[in-house]
């Protein structure tokens, strides 16, 4: 075992004991940083725009119609049971659509499994990270809040295509 003994050599000398040189050295370092470029962002005035690879709040892609066919795979794969889907029948080609699609953002862990499993590329992770809720009820997002026009999701869709 390596135990340091308090020998004469190990003890601090006079200059070390008064700390002043060390303080001066520290202040010098601080002074040097003042002239370096700044990395701090003035959030929320200054908003960060993430890359396409960023996994923010999951959203539903909205084209002319809706892409989602309510297959329920996202709900099945979700490890946190955040997604609840209720399907219903429609007259359109796809036969099936979600009459209810809810994501509980208090449960969501942003793993992106729902996006990965989706056969229709209907649910994708957006860049939205402003997630502020004032009640538990408010944190359960329905279809009205989840649907996002496809134009806003181009970065993410391109990123996904790269790795498919």
């Amino acid at each position, binding site marked *: 075992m390596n135990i340091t003994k308090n020998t004469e050599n190990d003890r601090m000398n006079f200059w070390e004991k008064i700390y002043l040189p060390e303080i001066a050295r520290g202040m010098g370092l601080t002074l040097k940083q003042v002239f370096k470029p700044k990395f701090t962002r003035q959030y929320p005035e200054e908003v960060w725009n993430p890359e396409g690879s960023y996994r923010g709040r999951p959203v539903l892609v909205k084209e002319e119609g809706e892409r989602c066919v309510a*297959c329920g795979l996202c709900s099945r794969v979700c490890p946190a049971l955040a997604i609840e889907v209720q399907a*219903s029948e429609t007259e359109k080609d796809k036969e099936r659509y979600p009459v209810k699609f809810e994501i509980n953002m208090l449960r969501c862990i942003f793993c992106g499994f729902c996006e990965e499993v989706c056969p229709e590329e209907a649910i994708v992770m957006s860049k939205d990270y402003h997630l502020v809720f004032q009640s538990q009820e408010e944190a359960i997002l329905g279809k009205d809040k989840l649907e996002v026009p496809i134009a806003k999701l181009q970065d993410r869709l391109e990123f996904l295509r790269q790795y498919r």
Partner: protein
Amino acid sequence: MPNIVIDGQKIETAAGKTVIEAAYENGMQITHFCWHPELSISGNCRMCLVEIGMPKRMPDGSIQNDNEGNPVISYFPKLQIACATTIAEGMHINTKKDNVVKAQEAVMEFLLINHPLDCPICDEAGQCKLQEYGYKYSKGESRFEEEKVHAPKHQSWGPTIVFDAERCIKCSRCIRFGQEVAKQDVLTFVNRGDHVKIELFEGTQFDNPYSMNVIDICPVGALTSKDFRFKSRVWDMSFNDSICPGCARGCNIKIGVRNNEILRIEPRTNPYVNKYWMCDYGRLSQYKFVNEDRVTEPMIRWKDELIPCSWDEAYAKAEESLKKFMPEEIMFIGSGRTANEGNYILSKFAMEVIKSENIDLFSDIDESFKDDFLKVSDKKPNCRGAVEVGIIPEKNGVKVQNLHDKMRFKNIKAIYIITDQIVQFRPILDEIDDLELLIVHAYNLTSLTKKADIVFAASTYAEIEGTYVNVDKRVQHLTPALVTAENLRFMGMKMSRLDKFGASNDRWTQHKLRNTLPHWKILTKLAEQFNVKWNYKSAKDVFKEITEKIPSFAGMTYEKLDEYQGLTLGKAEQPDPKVINYESHVMKPN
């Protein structure tokens, strides 16, 4: 009895069986789509191709052996279909050899050529035979680059079924079911090759009383239920074993539940009762009353209005009211819709606590309902069981036939009834307004419930454990599928996925748990008010007492009933032989 060898395993089976039958009766699976044990053999899916060989024989007829003394097998040059090949002495069958696996993969590739693979929108996904085999016996890739054949996706076949011609793999199970089981021969193949499709004869509908069984036997999602369509994915549902309360046949069923709501009922195989089938009436009519319009808590009448109250208040009020009458002024009415446990305790309550001899039940015989297959005229599932456990008037007791008169002449002033439906007995229903006391164990807010003075909220067949006795005197066990405040702990992991793991702030758990109790529990608690203490902790304890007190039930337990799929009254020691139930495919949830 011929001896055969399947995959090196020696098997002895009865002569005349086909290879596929011999295999499944000995717990082995041979892949197949079109074959079904209750239907004729059509042999058109080619999925059950196996290698079959016979021992080589010498010119004198003796079997040629190799150096080690084993018979030399000469295999047929081409593979044979296991569903249409009858077994013969000494037959050798290989189901896992390379050439067999290759043939299975090839057949799967052919079947998938024109299958749309729209599993995300298909109700069958998760319990689909083609999907299961796709994972197990297929390469998982297609070499087919041409356009798939397209066919109409949404064809109505009648009041209950939607047909998707694209998904169909032309196994002809539905055609054969219509011809052989349902006796409605309206389906047929038309055209040939990849244009073959199943069509209804012009101007007809597939609308027989057993039509929805084709949904279960369809190996793909070509036939889906109009009633269930898109209600839920199967993997989100729990399936618990129960008995259909639609009539006295007592078809074995599975109750599909999600979010504590029954979404569908499907048949469960029992070779001695319903085989693989059940009627559409049972499927469609026996769950809505459980989901909707329920009495969820006990109620007491207060100035022409039923006011919800606590259980203790209701018991106290019931005790106080019942004590105002002479025992012979109180009529107890059991129910053919209730399990034996509830009826037994009612009879015990009447005899031992109130000491009344007036116990009877309303039967519901409808000759027009009867047919020569499964449906029987007795529309209550458990009348025979009720009579067996003591719901029968003592010699001086009032019968339901005389009840109307007795009520009119004020001989009967109070009725304690454990069912909420006596609609077919109109005269009594009219006389009920003049009763001094009416206590009802109610499921729904029926016209009878609305007239009651005290209402106990009772659990339906889908929420209790118990036993029914069917028309053939077969005692069958039912288990709960839905959660109530009372059986929450018992249900535990038997609940559907979302129910199991839901927290109080999840939307899907927001529905209130029904505060209902099984009949036997209500009556046990009520007896406590009369200072009679019965020690029943569960339905099992009640059934144990039934088996001890009533000779025809002797020797039965819930475990034994499950093991033998029901036992006949009085014959607990001579159960029907156990058989391996044919399962069309095994990757079902639950």
